[in-house]
């Protein structure tokens, strides 16, 4: 058997064949129809579309034979692909190249062969479209022309098939990538949407729909986003939908589907295609929480600014106000009932008290917020403050008893404010008792799990606080005293100061006994006073 020599560009030819991804694929009707047509036009019992692989010829389509492939060594087509023109063997039994070929000597007993090479646009021959017969013969000119045409059609079909395969793969890749992108964008909490040059929504992620209260993203697609979610007149997003680089607005308002709105921060960037802006991608976040914190911070800043101002002028206002009030009250005390000036004097007094309270309130806020803290001994603060409380108590017949635990750990506090707490509690107790009673100041150290507290108990034998008003006693400006006799801030200030010191205030009350319990966390760095070691 005479084997066909290999084409000069065999390596490139095989690579080209691989690119068509057709070897060992299923039969396809389009190829089968062309093969049948070839057999029919040429009047042969056999027609094949043979592709020449490294060691075999493989039939993508065939008529009149059973085999799907044969060895390349015995393939007529292996000879055919060496030329660019139609390859014709009128009688194989008389051709030295094929006389002992098994395809000639055995079944299917080929005598006649005519094939056209299947040549790619790049000039690579992948195989042959051929017709065979068991008797020697030839083709007419028109049959040859038809076979050539069919060969080109097979080649067109192969190219189309290849394009389709590539397209399908690209589509699959694209879909995968899109899914990945969607997954990515749908997994973020940030709302993201895309608009075209008209401002119409072309895409939106799940967070976008969720933040804007839409059931699904499809409800947003096609909507004019500016009118839908962004009601301000000149939209910064649409304004730069030209050559600009992008925009960032750190505080704006976006509207939800239900007509409510929320504060948002957003970023918009152009979508460029071939250097031209075709739309924009906008991402936004709900900044409600941040706004809330900012507001709180602004408020406390405002408070401290007011406090500073108040602290500055309070002294100057307090004194003249005290004089006005003093004279007025002095005159009132001397006015007999029904005096012509009694009512006006009372009005002056009332209004002066209002001013005084206001100044006092402002002062309170100026003092609690920023104050230096230091490790301090609560007992020592009580000793200091109790001399003031005792001075007040001495005006009546009130006994002040102190029961202070020795060697208490330090707390981290502002001594002035802590004394203020003790004085306010003391004064409150004295007021509750009126002319006589007992005021007890007791301290102890408490451990609750891993936390240690220094506690102060202030107990009085006064009238007690009715349960109905007990929950309100720490409210700023809440007072049971008549107008002008209490600012309503004493206990409020206690609460405020203790809270600022990370402590707690509790109160238990029944007629004849009211107990305030103040707990401050133990200051760790000085948990034990130094003299502790000298105890024993």
């Amino acid at each position, binding site marked *: 058997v005479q084997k066909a020599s290999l084409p000069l560009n065999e390596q490139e030819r095989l690579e080209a064949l691989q690119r068509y991804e057709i070897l060992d694929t299923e039969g396809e009707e389009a190829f089968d129809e062309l093969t049948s047509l070839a057999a029919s036009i040429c009047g042969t019992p056999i027609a094949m579309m043979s592709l020449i692989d490294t060691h075999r010829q493989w039939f993508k389509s065939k008529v009149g034979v059973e085999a799907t492939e044969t060895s390349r060594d015995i393939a007529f087509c292996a000879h055919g692909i060496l030329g660019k023109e139609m390859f014709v063997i009128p009688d194989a039994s008389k051709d030295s190249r094929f006389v002992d070929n098994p395809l000639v000597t055995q079944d299917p007993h080929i005598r006649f062969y005519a094939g056209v090479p299947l040549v790619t646009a790049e000039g690579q021959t992948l195989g042959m479209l051929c017709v065979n017969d068991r008797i020697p013969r030839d083709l007419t000119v028109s049959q040859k022309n038809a076979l050539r045409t069919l060969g080109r059609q097979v080649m067109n079909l192969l190219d189309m098939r290849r394009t389709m395969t590539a397209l399908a793969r690209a589509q699959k890749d694209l879909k995968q990538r899109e899914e990945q992108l969607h997954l990515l964008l749908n997994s973020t909490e940030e709302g993201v949407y895309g608009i075209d040059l008209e401002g119409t929504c072309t895409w939106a992620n799940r967070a976008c729909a969720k933040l804007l209260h839409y059931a699904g993203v499809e409800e947003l697609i096609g909507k004019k986003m500016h009118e839908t979610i962004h009601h301000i007149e000149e939209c910064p997003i649409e304004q730069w939908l030209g050559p600009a680089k992008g925009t960032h607005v750190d505080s704006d308002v976006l509207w939800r589907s239900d007509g409510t709105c929320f504060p948002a921060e957003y970023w918009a960037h152009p979508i460029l295609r071939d250097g031209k802006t075709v739309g924009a991608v906008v991402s936004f976040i709900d900044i409600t929480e941040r706004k809330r914190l900012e507001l709180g911070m602004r408020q406390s800043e405002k408070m401290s600014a007011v406090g500073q101002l108040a602290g500055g002028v309070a002294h100057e206002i*307090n004194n*003249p106000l*005290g004089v006005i009030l003093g004279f007025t009250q*002095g005159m009132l005390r001397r006015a007999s009932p029904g005096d012509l000036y009694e009512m006006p004097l009372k009005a002056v007094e009332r209004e002066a008290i209002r001013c005084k309270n206001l100044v006092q309130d402002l*002062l309170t806020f100026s003092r609690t917020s920023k104050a230096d803290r230091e490790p301090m001994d609560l007992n020592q603060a009580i000793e200091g403050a109790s001399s003031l409380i005792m001075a007040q108590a001495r*005006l009546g017949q009130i006994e002040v008893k102190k029961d202070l635990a020795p060697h208490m750990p330090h707390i981290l506090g502002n001594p002035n404010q802590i004394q203020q707490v003790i004085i306010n509690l003391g004064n409150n107790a004295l007021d509750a008792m009126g002319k006589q009673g007992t005021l007890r100041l007791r301290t102890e150290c408490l451990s609750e799990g891993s936390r240690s507290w220094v506690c102060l108990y202030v107990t009085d034998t006064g009238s007690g606080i009715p349960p109905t008003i007990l929950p309100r006693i720490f409210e700023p400006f809440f007072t049971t005293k008549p107008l002008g006799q209490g600012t309503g801030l004493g206990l409020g200030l206690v609460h405020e100061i203790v809270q600022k010191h990370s402590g707690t205030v509790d109160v238990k009350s029944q007629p004849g006994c009211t107990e305030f319990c103040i707990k401050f966390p133990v200051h760790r760095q000085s948990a034990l006073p130094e003299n502790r070691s000298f105890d024993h």
Partner: protein
Amino acid sequence: VKITSPQRPRVLIVDDEPGLRALLEWELSDHGIEVKTARDGEEATQLVEQMPFDIVLTDLTMPKADGLVLLEHLKKTKPETPVIIATGFGTVETAVQAMQKGAYDFLLKPLDVPKLIALIQKVLRRPPSSCLCRGL
């Protein structure tokens, strides 16, 4: 021993606020008390040298010689004269200091006039040895 005016007790008011001095003078005078006023510790010291007082009521914060300085001076020169301290909200610490330095008592500003009068009357009712025997 020279008793100047056994009938009318004499009180010295020391405060830099003229309105408050006027108010207290008006109130105390009405209660049969002879009132002298000084605008600061310096003026008060001069007055104390000129005449005896049953009580000195002084503010703490004043431009020239504040309440603490006056208190220390009086404790040295007139140890028998009771000194009442009037203290603002912000000077509670100083009030504590004043009590430790021997002030008789303290009152929170703004002053509660009836409380002040009650306190003054209480001081005046003390045994003569510590009260009415002035100029010793």
